[in-house]
């Protein structure tokens, strides 16, 4: 028993070291911009760079639109599948997993071929169109996370009975989704939203190949040309992702408690 406990701690320590040592090393390196002393100079340079502000703002806006698009597609779809088409769930789950299997570069080349300026849907013919296509691409990349988060949220409530209870009280579909389903899966939706945010902020392939001024390509560009700033940016990106995860944890405490479990 004691020996098992010892090895459990050893495993934990090795795992933690594997995770934290590169992070600490990166952080330490990012502090060494000024010769001989530790300083936050690299961070000052990064935050003061107008390209950082522009690309970060661009990615934040793209993330917000991606979240809106994802919620509009995933929530009604996941709800309807649970309510009326449960036999389609395995198929839909498989489809939502495809973005994890198909590399982003394949998806984006597909987009370029499908939506080029000579195609019937010339998204790539203008900057605005390309932005729209980028958001659609991001929504695809985030689909596995958003769908699973929403589906897990729906699993905690009795979707069918709550829907029928609302229907018999006179509610139409809009009222049911807005006043009954959404509030009860809001925390799950927010979890999906923050995961989406984290993915969009760090995404490189799509933004780069579609030539959009996003944060991912900026990170790559800085990484290729500077010494200390990339380390600072890596820490910043990491802090943003962890911040998102922490918010999910905090929000999950406010999830509505199910009252549908009989005594």
């Amino acid at each position, binding site marked *: 028993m004691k020996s098992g406990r010892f090895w459990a701690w050893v495993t934990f320590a090795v795992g933690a070291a594997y995770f934290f040592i590169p992070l600490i090393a990166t952080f330490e390196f990012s502090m060494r911009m000024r010769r001989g002393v530790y300083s936050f100079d690299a961070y000052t340079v990064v935050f003061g760079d107008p390209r950082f502000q522009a690309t970060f703002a661009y990615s934040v806006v793209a993330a917000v639109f991606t979240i809106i698009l994802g919620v509009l597609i995933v929530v009604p779809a996941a709800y309807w599948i649970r309510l009326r088409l449960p036999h389609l769930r395995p198929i839909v789950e498989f489809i939502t997993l495809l973005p994890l299997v198909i590399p982003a570069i394949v998806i984006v080349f597909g987009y370029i071929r499908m939506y080029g300026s000579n195609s019937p849907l010339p998204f790539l013919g203008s900057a605005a169109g390309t932005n729209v296509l980028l958001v659609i691409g991001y929504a695809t990349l985030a689909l596995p996370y958003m769908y699973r988060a929403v589906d897990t949220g729906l699993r905690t409530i009795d979707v069918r009975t709550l829907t029928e209870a609302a229907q018999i*009280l006179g509610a139409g579909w809009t009222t049911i989704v807005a006043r009954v389903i959404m509030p009860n899966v809001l925390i799950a939706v927010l979890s999906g939203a923050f995961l989406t945010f984290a993915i969009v902020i760090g995404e490189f392939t799509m933004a780069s190949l579609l030539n959009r001024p996003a944060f991912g390509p900026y990170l790559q560009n800085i990484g290729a040309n500077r010494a200390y700033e990339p380390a600072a940016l890596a820490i910043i990106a990491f802090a943003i992702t962890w911040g998102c995860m922490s918010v999910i944890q905090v929000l999950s405490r406010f999830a509505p408690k199910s009252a549908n479990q009989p005594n």
Partner: protein
Amino acid sequence: MTDHFLKIQSVRKSFGPTTVVQDFNLDVGTGEFVSFLGPSGCGKTTVLRMVAGFEEPTSGAIVIGGKDVTRLKPNQRNIGMVFQAYALFPNLTVAQNIAFGLKVAGVPKADSDKRVAEMLNLIKLPQFGDRYPYQLSGGQQQRVALARAIAPKPKLLLLDEPLSALDAKVRVSLRDEIRAIQKELGITTVFVTHDQEEALSISDRIVVMYGGKAEQVGTPFEIYNRPATKFVANFVGTLNVLEGTVTDPSTGAVQVGANSVMLKGKLNGSKAGDTLSLALRPEAISLGRQPGRDATLGGEIAEVSFLGSVIRVRVGVGKDRVSLDTFNSPASPPPTVGDKAEISFSPEDVLVLH
């Protein structure tokens, strides 16, 4: 019962090749409390869901208040419904849950608040308006579900096994409350249950269902005392069934084991040598001879169960066993297993099942 508020006319429902409800007809009077009673899978909930509008009949019609609602959506039918799993909205407080239907109907807030207060008083939870469903017990949640269902003043109330998820004590008290509220409001109610005691105790009429069909429709008294079919007789209440052979149709003589009983006028055209199933309720049988109970059968005490105020005795008669209850009297000890015993009953109380 003057008029028929709910009419279910020749309704049939099939799911693919399986027919779950066949040729179902029922008229429910205004203010009447009708229960659908039957085992799992008999189609009772399907009929209720068709009345609610959650399922569309394959054929037939459903008329509520003179209006054909067969193809109408559930939210256009003005029906209240209580579900087995409560189905309270977890994100809303008790008061908000009760007000949900009123808000959807566009009732002004002042009127809605007044109605919610009335409902909270009706279900005896006036202090619980600000609580969330998860803060209530099962019985309290179901009372809130009832209040939510009747708050918009529906003309028809559907109760889909509302007591099944509750413990026995709460079930009995809530059952009485539901009946009291239904009588007070005079609301036409259809109640689905598989619990015969529930159905017998609160219904004006009971529809006993089996295999997607209504086996019998009648008052609790009729259903219990004059079951129309073998299924109804077996399903409702405890029943002792004895196999008998007709020996003389003219005198009504039937041989049961080594004994003969006279069932004149009950043989319904049976011929000599026909085998009949004779059914008797436990309360129609006495241990030993009793005045007014002229028919007797001899047997042996097979089992004695002490249940407190009553003692359940099983007597072996031929190859059958007859169950009967006697009051527990501290002065006389219960019978002993293996003793010879005689049971008596009135031929009038025998149900001949064909």
